[in-house]
């Protein structure tokens, strides 16, 4: 069973990789055939992905939501499914050049982090877990969408003013941050093998990293950073053409998409935090204990709450809002990843 799941998941990741290339080619060459091929590949990949998840579910006996691999596998599955529906309804194949590579990166990280199914520790055996994790992931997805739209708002603004140098800088910064995050993540999650140290007094486990581990983590971050900068430079140069502005949606649409994604994500992050608190109450009798994950999700909530206030009360629009939406993803990334690896807390069992 485990073998089937692995084979299907490897097929999934490879298909997404090829599909990413085809979608980017479609955007650059504006070829309709490439677009159709991309959609076909993506449907095929989604089928393999679904099979992998079903095998995982049957094999482990619980919904695949209990560790990094499972939540990422489900997350990338959701992205592809959501995107394919959007593509069918709105015929927006150009967006695939961003969405499909994102799904590929997330799925390939899941593949690297996969340790096979594990029994659930007692605290995770609750249906609140399923609701909590899926809603939290969904809200992260919407904030990522808001980030993407906000980023392209900034790019479009510079393109329209023909400030091509700034376009390149924007791409380099964005992909450098993403590359760094992905590199550090692989360093922490896959390459480093820290020892579990149990505190004799509090019985809490913490991770102890050796010198080699730290070297691997820094190395991962450095490689990711370099690849990100290089990719950002190439993408920025590629986008710095007068014709590219026409391929992107208008400033108004990008502004609206970014805002609406946050307006959709905010209730979800609210529900995600509250269901998490209810779950904690059921498991430990404390609905809020200022655990780092809770606190950081509260910070995320405050941040996007502030965004909505600047927009709905102060009437901020355009670049101001775009900058906030872009910065927000750093907080989301830290809440999702940074807390698991850098700060300890009740959620630490969620690391792979």
């Amino acid at each position, binding site marked *: 069973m485990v073998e089937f799941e692995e084979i299907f998941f490897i097929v999934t990741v490879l298909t997404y990789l090829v599909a990413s290339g085809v979608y980017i080619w479609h955007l650059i060459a504006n070829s309709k055939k490439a677009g159709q091929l991309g959609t076909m590949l993506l449907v095929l990949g989604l089928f393999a992905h679904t099979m992998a998840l079903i095998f995982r579910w049957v094999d482990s006996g619980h919904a695949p939501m209990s560790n990094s691999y499972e939540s990422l596998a489900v997350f990338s599955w959701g992205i592809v499914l959501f995107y394919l529906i959007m593509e069918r309804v709105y015929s927006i194949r150009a967006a695939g050049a961003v969405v499909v590579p994102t799904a590929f990166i997330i799925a390939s990280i899941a593949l690297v982090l996969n340790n096979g*199914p*594990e*029994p*659930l*520790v*007692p*605290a995770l*055996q*609750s249906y609140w877990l399923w609701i909590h994790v899926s809603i939290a992931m969904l809200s992260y997805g919407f904030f990522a969408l808001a980030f993407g739209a906000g980023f392209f708002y900034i790019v479009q603004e510079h393109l329209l003013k023909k400030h091509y140098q700034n376009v390149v800088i924007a791409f380099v910064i964005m992909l450098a941050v993403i590359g760094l995050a992905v590199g550090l993540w692989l360093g922490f999650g896959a390459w480093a093998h820290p020892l579990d140290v149990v*505190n*004799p*007094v*509090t*019985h*809490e486990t913490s991770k102890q990293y050796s010198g080699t581990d730290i070297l691997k983590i820094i190395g991962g971050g450095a490689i990711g950073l370099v690849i990100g900068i290089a990719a950002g430079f190439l993408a920025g140069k590629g986008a710095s053409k007068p014709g590219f502005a026409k391929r992107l949606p208008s400033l*108004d*649409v990008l502004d*609206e998409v970014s*805002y*609406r994604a946050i*307006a*959709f994500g*905010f*209730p979800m992050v*609210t*529900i995600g935090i*509250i269901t998490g*608190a*209810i779950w904690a*109450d*059921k*498991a*430990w*009798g*404390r*609905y*809020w204990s*200022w655990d*780092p994950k809770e*606190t*950081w999700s*509260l*910070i995320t909530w*405050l*941040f996007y*709450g*502030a965004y909505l*206030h*600047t927009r*709905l*009360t*102060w*009437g901020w629009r355009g670049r101001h809002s775009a900058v906030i939406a872009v910065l927000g993803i750093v907080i989301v990334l830290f809440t999702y990843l940074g*807390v698991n690896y850098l*700060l300890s*807390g009740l959620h630490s069992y969620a690391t792979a």
Partner: protein
Amino acid sequence: MRSTPPDGGAPPACRRSFPVSSLQEANSENIAALPKQAAKPQISVGRKIFHFLISMKLALTLLFVIAILSIIGTILPQGQDVWASDWPKSPLFDFYNTLGLFNMYYSWWFLSVLGLLVLSLSACIFNRMPTTVKHVFKPRVDVKDAFVANQPQAASIAGGAAAAVAVLRRHHYRVKKGATGSVLAQKGRFSSLASVTFHLSFLLIAAGAVLGGLFGFDYQLTVPNGQIVNVPHSNMQAESHGFDMQFSGKALLDDGRTVEVNSTDAASQSQCLGSNGWWDGTEGICWVRGVNDGGNIVSAFDPRPSRYSTSLELFQNGKSISRKTIQVNDPLELNGINFYQESFSQDNQGGAVSILEVNHYPGKTLVYIGAFLMMGSITLALYFPNRRIWLKAGKSGELLIGGRTNRSRLGFKRDFERITTEIKLRTGQEAGADG
């Protein structure tokens, strides 16, 4: 001093810090109510404080300060953990400790900032409630021509009012006819109200948390197997009739496969082998295969606790008052006091010791009500935005149509354009059918 957000609709809870006139889209339903910027009379201190509290700038600053301060608590160890952590007990440690940085979420300064936010929120809700209630329950239906024409979306079209009403109804708008012939059609009527109840829910949660903090308690109780211990803050005693633990692990089978295995209770080696299990020498643990695995276990490894439970009995005045096997996610609740299975350890003789979390939070019901109100109202406020469209017959037979929304302007613009097109089409068809 009330103003309207540029997206239109009900006025915001908190005041913008700059005057409305500086905004491009300040056309609002209650713009006439704005005071003249004439000679200002003396403002009382109370009024000044109120204005300070309802300013959006203060609210956003407080959100920002809370976010920044919260980060400190996620970096420094908090509460009991600090004594077990490897923080050197140096003068710096003492200094941090005096500041309350090791218990910062309960320090007077952090709680003061939260308190100020609660004050600001209360003032904003108090400030906004009457207007919002009026806006939602007594919307303006009878309006002047200029009012319709000045809406963010406005058009003057060749169309009949009856056709327009039919089209709006088909688009799921609720239609209300006024006394002077004008019509208001609405969607998402409760969006603005939900926004207020969302802020109100925050106050309910805060109130519940304060009640819990003042009158509640929360501690760890260690109960060794077979012993009776006092339950602090109550006149009860607790006895553990046994701690039970089950494991999941992996096992190597004789055909070379690795499978998931579970442990069951087995008092002895012969009992374990008798049930086709595999004995690894640990007392009480017997590894068994899944039903469809086949093969025989050669070795078992990587055990993880999959379930642990304590058979707990409570006594009062020497009489047994309750008994239950508690496990994680399934506590024993009695008279508002909850006993949770938290973890376990071993005593000096190797006997099992159950570690329970005992707590009592009087405000929890309030917190739950607030939490459900919060989830419901934020969903209503953001997923069902308010859209208002007014219709009025113009002086020369044309139909004036104008509208606004409190959220997505582009979405509303599309909706509005579709509606006006359909009205024109339908009016044309009706005219054709008549003639």
